[in-house]
C-alpha cells in the first residue's frame, strides 16, 4: 500500500461576486510510496501549491480525497509537516523554541524536547544560534530552522512548498544538498513543490509535471540518478538529458499559462 494516496482530488474556487468559478485543479491522482522523494514541477499558478495545501489539510478539495496510511485527511495535523515558501518562524520564539513548538504541543517532557531540539539544530547546522530570534537570521537560516521545526515533530510525510524560492542561487544550492542529505540519512517521505527544473531533478526520485491552469498531472519522470548526490551531479550528461526533457515539457505549459494570462 502506498504511504500517501491522492485520489481524484480537484479544487474549484467559487467566483467572486457572481464571476465565473476558477478551476485550480482538475482531478489529480498520485500514489506516493514510503520514503519516496517526489517533486511536483509546474509553472506558476498551475495549482501545485493548492494540491500540497490539500494534502496538508489547509485546504479542502471540492472532489476526491487524500489518504495517509489509508486514513482520509480531514484537517491539518502533526503527521504532515510543512515548510512554506514564506518565512513562517514564530518571531517571538527563539530558534530552539521554534523547533520545539510541535513537541510542546504534544506535551513532551522538557528533557526529551531538549534532546530532539539539539539533534535537529545540529542536523541543519545551526549550533550556536539556538537562542537567536528569527529576525537575526538570514533567509537561508530561517528556512533551515523551518525544516528542523517540521522534522522535529517526526511527521509521516514532509511537505515543502517552494521552500527555497525566496533564496539566492548559491544559498538555494546549499539548501538542496542539506535537505537531500537529511533525507538520505533519515529516509522520510517527501512531497516537494517547485517551479525550478534543476531543483526538481536534483532532489527527486520521481518528478511529477503539472500542466498550466487548470492543473492536472501531465507527465511523470523517474530520476534514477545515484545517491548520495552532490552538486557536481548537475553537470553530468544524465542530468542534462533529464533537464532537456523536462524543460521541453514545462515550456509548453509555460507558454499556455502566458497565453491564458
Amino acid at each position, binding site marked *: 500500500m502506498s504511504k500517501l494516496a491522492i485520489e481524484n482530488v480537484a479544487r474549484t474556487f467559487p467566483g467572486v461576486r457572481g464571476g465565473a468559478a476558477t478551476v485550480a485543479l482538475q482531478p489529480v491522482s498520485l500514489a506516493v510510496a514510503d520514503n519516496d522523494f517526489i517533486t511536483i514541477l509546474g509553472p506558476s499558478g498551475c495549482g501545485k501549491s493548492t494540491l500540497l495545501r490539500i494534502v*496538508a*489539510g*489547509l485546504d479542502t478539495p471540492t472532489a476526491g480525497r487524500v489518504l495517509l496510511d489509508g486514513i482520509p485527511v480531514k*484537517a*491539518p*495535523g*502533526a503527521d*504532515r*509537516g*510543512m515548510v*512554506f515558501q*514564506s518565512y*513562517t518562524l*514564530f*518571531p*517571538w*520564539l527563539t530558534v530552539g523554541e521554534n523547533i520545539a*513548538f*510541535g513537541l*510542546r*504541543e*504534544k506535551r513532551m517532557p522538557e528533557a526529551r524536547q531538549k534532546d530532539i531540539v539539539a539533534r535537529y539544530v545540529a542536523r541543519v547546522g545551526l549550533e550556536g544560534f539556538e537562542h537567536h*530570534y*528569527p*529576525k537575526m537570521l538570514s533567509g537561508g537560516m530561517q528556512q533551515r530552522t523551518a525544516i528542523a*521545526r*517540521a522534522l522535529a*515533530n517526526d511527521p509521516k510525510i514532509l*511537505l515543502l512548498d517552494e521552500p527555497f524560492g525566496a533564496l539566492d542561487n548559491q544559498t538555494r544550492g546549499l539548501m538542496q544538498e542539506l535537505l537531500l542529505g537529511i533525507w538520505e540519512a533519515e529516509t522520510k517521505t517527501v512531497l516537494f513543490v517547485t517551479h525550478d527544473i534543476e531543483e526538481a531533478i536534483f532532489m527527486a526520485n520521481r518528478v511529477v509535471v503539472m500542466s498550466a491552469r487548470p492543473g492536472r498531472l501531465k507527465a511523470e519522470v523517474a530520476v534514477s540518478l545515484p545517491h548520495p548526490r552532490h552538486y557536481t551531479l548537475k553537470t553530468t550528461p544524465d542530468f542534462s538529458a533529464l533537464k532537456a526533457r523536462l524543460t521541453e515539457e514545462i515550456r509548453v505549459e509555460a507558454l499556455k499559462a502566458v497565453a491564458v494570462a
Partner: protein
Amino acid sequence: MTPLKPISRGRRVALGVAFFVAFVAAWSVATLGGFVSKLFLADPLTMLHEGWLLFVKYGFLKDIGVTVWRVVGGFVLASIVAVPLGIAMGAYKPIEAFFEPFVSFARYLPASAFIPLLILWAGIGETQKLLVIFIGSFFQIVLMVAMTVGATRRDLVEAAYTLGADASGVVRRVLLPSSSPAIAETLRLVLGWAWTYVIVAELIGASSGIGHMITDSQALLNTGQIIFGIIVIGVIGLISDFAFKWANQRLYPWAIN
C-alpha cells in the same frame, strides 16, 4: 535635508529641545514684553511661581495623586474587561459579528457627554469619575485589540496547525503572542486619551484633582495656575508614555526592528 535620512541622536535631542526653547521664548516675549494682557495669559515666571505656591500652599500633590489614581483606576478596569473581549472578537468571527456593530457605534458616543447621566446614576463620587474613563477607554480598546488579533499573519496560524496545534493552541500560542506588542501599543495610546477624559470629568462636580484645581483657578482668573496644571498633565503623560515604551521594549525584544 534628504527625505527619510536618519539623523544622529545628539542632533535629534538638540532639535527637540530647541523647539521647547523657542516656544518658551515666544511666550516670554509676548507676556513679559507687554503684548498680551496679564489677565489673559500669565508669563512663564509667574506661572512657575504660581506652580510653586500650588505645591507648598494648596496641597497640589494630593490633587495630582487623586487624578492619577482616577486615570489608572478607570483605565485598568476598562483594560481588564476590554482586552479579553477584544481577543475573543479577533479570534472568533461569530463573537465579533455579535459585538462589533454595537461597539463601533458606542465608540462614537462621546464619554464627556455621559457625565450628566453618570452624575445622575452614580453621584459625584469616585465611581462617576472612574465610569467616565471606563466608557472613554473601553470601546476603543475592544475595537483596536480585535483588529490587531484579527490581523494575525495567516501563514503563522497555518504553520501552527501543521505542527499539531488545535484551536486553543493557536489562540494561546500564536494569536496572543503575535498580538501582544500591538496590544501594548494600543493601551499606551488609549491611556493618553484617558488623560483628557479625566480632566473633563474633574471640571464638573469634583472637589479634588487637577481638573478641579483648573476650574477653581479660572474663577480666580489665575492663568498661571491653569497653565501650570496643564503642563503638569503633559509631563505626567510624557512620563507614562516613556514608561510604556520602555516596558514594551523590554517585554517584546523580538518585535523591534
